[in-house]
């Protein structure tokens, strides 16, 4: 395993906050530094593709992923992303091949996953306690192995976004038009889905099942309100996501706050969203 200590030490040196001197805080800081840009960029496309419900379904399959991991004695931290990936691709295949509407397909998968997870967990009382961790999430327990995986995922995902941001926008706008323009719609959709599933599963560990979709959607929604073009939407989403995550982490560690990190981050992002409504409202007022 690569030793990440020098990286953590850098965080401690550059940001001389008291709370950032503890190693677990440095790990969480690096984790969020990797996770939130990915969530922001993918979130833009989730909003464009109207896939919020899809992201929800993936996050809720976390229970089943954890349960399966415990059943087969695999570390739940790894069985969860692997299972999420399978579920995501399964939903995509089903959506593309069946005549059912997307939200119906997702709804069926969603309930099947939750029921399956609960069924397995209900057999063993001691598992239930473990599951609470995934319901609320905890970025402070992120491990070195996960951070290394996040670094790899970050490289792959940014590469994919650089290559495909324009085409993904096109597909999100209208798939038929994109296909007539000789863009490989299905391939883009599958790669996007796979990466999104992995991001969601990692974000579940940080934010919890209940709040993971917010991490994707809220910065992108605020960016939409503030941006004047698809290019600037990217930078807005990135800025909002990073600023909410890092300030959320620092705030939640303050002795007077002592709130859950995930919830604090989402609250700040929602504050951004409220602010983002202002310019449009002011413009409307001026017109009237």
């Amino acid at each position, binding site marked *: 395993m690569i030793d990440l200590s020098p990286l953590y030490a850098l965080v401690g040196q550059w940001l001389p906050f008291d709370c950032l001197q503890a190693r677990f805080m440095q790990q969480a800081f690096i984790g969020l530094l990797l996770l939130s840009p990915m969530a922001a960029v993918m979130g833009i496309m989730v909003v464009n593709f109207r896939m919020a419900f899809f992201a929800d379904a993936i996050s809720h399959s976390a229970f089943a992923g954890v349960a399966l991991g415990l059943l087969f004695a695999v570390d739940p931290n790894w069985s969860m992303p692997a299972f999420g990936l399978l579920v995501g691709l399964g939903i995509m295949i089903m959506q593309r091949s069946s005549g059912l509407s997307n939200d119906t397909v997702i709804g069926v998968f969603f309930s099947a996953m939750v029921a399956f997870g609960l069924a397995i967990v209900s057999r063993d009382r001691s598992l239930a306690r473990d599951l609470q961790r995934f319901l609320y999430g905890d970025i402070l327990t992120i491990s070195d192995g996960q951070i290394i995986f996040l670094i790899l995922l970050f490289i792959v995902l940014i590469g994919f976004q650089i290559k495909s941001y324009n085409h993904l926008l096109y597909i999100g706008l209208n798939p038929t038009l994109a296909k007539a323009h000789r863009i490989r719609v299905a391939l883009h959709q599958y790669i996007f889905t796979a990466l999104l599933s992995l991001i969601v599963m990692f974000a579940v560990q940080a934010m919890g099942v209940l709040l993971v979709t917010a991490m994707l959607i809220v910065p992108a929604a605020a960016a939409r309100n503030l941006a004047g*073009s698809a290019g600037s939407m990217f930078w807005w989403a990135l800025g909002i996501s990073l600023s909410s995550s890092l300030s959320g982490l620092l705030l939640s560690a303050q002795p007077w706050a002592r709130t859950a990190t995930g919830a604090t981050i989402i609250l700040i992002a929602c504050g951004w969203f409220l602010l983002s409504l202002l310019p449009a409202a002011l413009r409307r007022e001026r017109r009237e």
Partner: protein
Amino acid sequence: MAAVNPLPLYQPAADEVETAIRFKEVTVERGGISILDSVSANAPKGSCTAIIGPNGAGKTTLLMALLGEIGYQGAIVLGNGKQPLRIGYVPQRLSFDRGMPLTVSEFLAMGFQKKPLWFGIIPKIQDNSRRILAQVKAEHLATRKIGALSGGELQRVLLALALRQDPDLLVLDEPSAGVDFRGELIFCELLDKLRVSKGFTQLMVSHDLATVTHHATHVICLNRKVAAEGPPQLTLTPENLTAIFGMHMGLVRSRSMPENRVVCSAPCCQGKCND
């Protein structure tokens, strides 16, 4: 269904014209219901071919089969069948999220520019977009958001996107839907001019017979089967129209096509249809 076929099918001689599209026995079924029944028709190269027919005749389905969006039996041969044709597609009504912040310039660039749009639009691509917008008389729209465009403006931007691809074949689904008469006339004249200057083949679906009689050079009358095919003067006869559309078409027929001749004062018709 024998009554639906009052005219013998128009059969061009094999060497008469080069075809851009050949539909061969195209059949589409959905849930056991036949939508297209062994449709065989041609679109001559360089023509303005119109597909007309009542609602539910399968016009849009035929286009979707052409674009590869739905499965079908039979064959659709593009061009000489060797090189793929570049298809520019202008949809009937672009269903998209109007809240998306996307400018017209970005809309025209996103299919062409490799560099992600967050780094801005490359000047060369921007210049191309402006030139193509000028061709469809929409230069002033470049910086607008596409969600804020009117129906007619959006249609011209969509046309610009299709033309930008330098198409061999321009496919339009109901180009006149949602545009007022004046806008439609301008749009069709614009298309006529561009088709002649660029030499592409135009295939459009329309249920607006006025547009078809003014602008089409070749007509495919569709009602799940090909009811008639050929030049407008031969296909848009009162008998044919009544057979395809039913009784209601009498109105259109008496006004626009007395004795198989188009009487129209629009400049586009003078000398084109009445010769």
